[in-house]
């Protein structure tokens, strides 16, 4: 029944791209947070979360993403998102997340902006 989230990382210091595949629920959110905090500890101050492989999230998972945004703000870094489904993007706007995390259509556009 459980759709476990797969998380992979492409490190391009000081930026890293985190790729997800599957459902971002509480366990999925915690796995993303674990990876993100490891990256922060290794001096990655910009994290791009590529959700191309994620078609569904829940509010518990998103709450954990808010914790990551809080952490990034504390270190003067940033968390950004790309490849969101229209519903996930709409949800982020409903919650106001887009005020604190940039949202890009795809990874190429995101990297063009974040690496300037």
């Amino acid at each position, binding site marked *: 029944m459980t759709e476990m989230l797969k998380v992979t990382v492409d490190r391009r210091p000081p930026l890293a791209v985190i790729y997800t595949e599957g459902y971002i629920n509480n366990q999925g959110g915690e796995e993303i947070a674990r990876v993100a905090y490891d990256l922060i500890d290794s001096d990655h101050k910009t994290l791009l979360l590529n959700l191309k492989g994620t078609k569904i999230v*829940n*509010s518990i998972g998103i709450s954990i993403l808010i914790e990551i945004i809080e952490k990034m703000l504390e270190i003067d870094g940033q968390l950004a998102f790309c490849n969101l489904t229209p519903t996930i993007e709409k*949800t982020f706007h409903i919650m106001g997340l887009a005020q604190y995390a940039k949202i890009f259509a795809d990874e190429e556009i995101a990297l063009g902006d974040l690496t300037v």
Partner: protein
Amino acid sequence: MVDSTVMREVTLTLPMLPDMEIAASKTATALAEFMDMSSDKIDEVRMAVVEACINSFEHSKADDCKVEIHFVVLGNDDPERLQITIKDSGVGFAPETLVRPNIEEKLKAANKRGWGLTIIKGLMDEVDIQSGPNGTTVVMSKLR
């Protein structure tokens, strides 16, 4: 408004166990596809169902640890509206006392949760919540 007839209906009774909300979301998807809803609207219904189930799982404290979900496709000649009722027999809450969460405050707060109803209301066309000491019933619908 012309009365709609029930074109299709499904009832699920789910145990309050991790990821059971996915079973509900799959049923919602199947019915929304039957209605020929757009893929974006299907995703919105799916996410709202997930949130409604999670709210019930997490907050109802229902003794029977079950949630009943009733899906109805309404329409006349063609399907027009998907109505979903999520019902638990838990302790209930006072919907009118709930404050819409604010991202700025949540970023600083220890508890970053409490977004479920805000998301549901943002994604569905109509949402009605009835809650009392015998449980909570959320009725939400989406037009095709």
